[in-house]
């Protein structure tokens, strides 16, 4: 019956039928929450009962609360970790892209951690860093006992341990993206460079770096939003204890532990604002490029 209709009517029906459910979902689970969140952020709502308007009080509280500010500061560890991750991933990609025996073996070893479940990784490193755990055992073998500390208990060490875990988890992704870009450089170009007497360093500097320049830029910017929205690894490994809390952990606790939905919304709006600004800057950057 449908096929007998004029294409013009068919088209209208298809447009409507094919979009109605996906668009409903999009509005219901993406736009509505974002809008609600902004409106909650000006109230002292507890998730139930009445919503009392409090103006900017939640925002003032956030920026004057040292705990929350401390959590914000912890993003720096992950941000720096993210930069180190990019550098190491680039180096590993250069190695795997060159003449190397066991190339496929190394490629899969370097990438696989990225696919592992985050809870499994967190538990694995809880085990790795625990007293008398893997790390301590290895350090003893190398005679480094005196440097052993409570990796997740010492306030001066915990954020480094967590950022390390995060680098371990995500480096495979940066690595595979870099490698993909490098492999799209034709081997002829590299061979020609070799014939002209270019050493490894020159090949990296003048051929490989330019091939991944845009990826580096994009990832440096994405790294900012990534560092602000860190949640899973510290939440599972330390629960935010010993000065390792992050802004999103604080937000989740404020909302779901302390039922301060209004204040938590304001915190989430702050994150959203930072991420949106970063995205905007990124877009401007890349538009200019073209």
């Amino acid at each position: 019956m449908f096929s007998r209709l004029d294409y013009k009517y068919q088209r209208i029906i298809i447009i409507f039928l094919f979009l109605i459910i996906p668009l409903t979902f999009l509005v219901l689970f993406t736009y509505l929450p974002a809008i609600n969140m902004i409106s909650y952020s000006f109230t002292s709502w507890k998730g139930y009962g009445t919503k009392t308007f409090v103006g900017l009080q939640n925002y003032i509280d956030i920026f004057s609360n040292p705990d929350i500010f401390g959590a914000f500061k912890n993003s720096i560890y992950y941000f720096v970790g993210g930069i180190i991750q990019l550098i190491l991933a680039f180096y590993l990609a250069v190695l795997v892209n060159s003449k190397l025996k066991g190339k496929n073996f190394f490629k899969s070893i370097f990438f696989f951690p990225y696919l592992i479940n985050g809870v499994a990784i967190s538990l694995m490193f809880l085990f790795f860093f625990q007293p008398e755990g893997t790390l301590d055992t290895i350090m003893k073998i190398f005679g480094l006992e005196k440097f052993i500390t409570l990796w997740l208990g010492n306030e001066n060490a915990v954020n480094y341990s967590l950022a390390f875990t995060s680098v371990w988890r995500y480096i495979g992704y940066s690595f595979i993206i870099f490698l993909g870009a490098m492999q799209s450089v034709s081997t002829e170009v590299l061979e020609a460079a070799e014939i002209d007497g270019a050493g490894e360093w020159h090949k990296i500097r003048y051929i490989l770096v330019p091939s991944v320049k845009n990826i580096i830029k994009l990832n440096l910017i994405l790294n900012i939003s990534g560092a602000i929205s860190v949640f899973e690894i510290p939440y599972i490994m330390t629960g935010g204890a010993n000065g390792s809390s992050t802004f999103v952990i604080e937000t989740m606790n404020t909302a779901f532990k302390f039922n301060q939905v209004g204040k938590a919304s304001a915190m989430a709006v702050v994150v959203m604002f930072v991420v949106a600004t970063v995205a905007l800057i990124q877009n401007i950057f890349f538009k200019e490029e073209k």
Partner: protein
Amino acid sequence: MSEKDILKSKIRQIAWNILKYLSCILAAFIFILPILTIFLASFKGYEEFYESSKLALPKHLFNFSNYVTAFVDGGMLNGFKNTAIIMVISLAGTILMGAMVAFVLQRFDFKLKKLILLMYLFPMFLPMVTTQVATFQIVSKLGLYNTIWAPIILYLGADVMSIYIMMQFMESIPIANDEAAMLDGASYLYIFNKLILPLLKPAIATIIILRGVGIYNDFYTPFLYAPSQELGTVATSLYKFIGPYGGQWNVIAAGVILIMIPTAIVFIALQKYIYNGFVDGAVK
């Protein structure tokens, strides 16, 4: 080039080779070590675990008792069941919805098209973890809280990436195909079902890989929206090990290995597609 130069470049070449292999081996060691020690621990008995070195081989290499504990008592079996249900429904839905939206937006021109395209662009810049505070209220109001439908619906509603992958791919399917079928009197529904969908296979494979990994590994969605014991996914079931098995690292280790087994199997079987999937997904 003089002989001296040739010698110099040879030495450089050798030094670079040594550095190269040393770096790769060291890196591989750092990636393997945490997994290896967990693997060893998973075969050890409770006392054996605390008495032996973390690097020591287990006494009985095929002591699977920890695995049985983790699988049955620890609820991992139930977790695998729930994860499988959630993945199958979400992936099927994501693929169908993604193809439908992409078809309409890529093939037709209509008034609200620009607005809808824009609506699908914005969420790319919004990390979902930030809006959970308000999403939670909506999920509760819909009566979906603490049901298996909560994560499914959220995976369907928040997935913009699949639509982009589908649209990218659909661009490469010539419209001439559609037009030829229309000359034969085929309906749009027929064109979508019989012409477009089968040709989208590579895009579907990419989405299954990217979203499949994402859903299998997701922790906070089921943790927040389906917290009850029976609804546990692999991730939340494993997370719950921290409480009751807090001291029994040998059992936790078995749970960690269990959750990695499907990932490892899929990775080994589909390696090439997985690399390509992630590289394509990132560029687009």
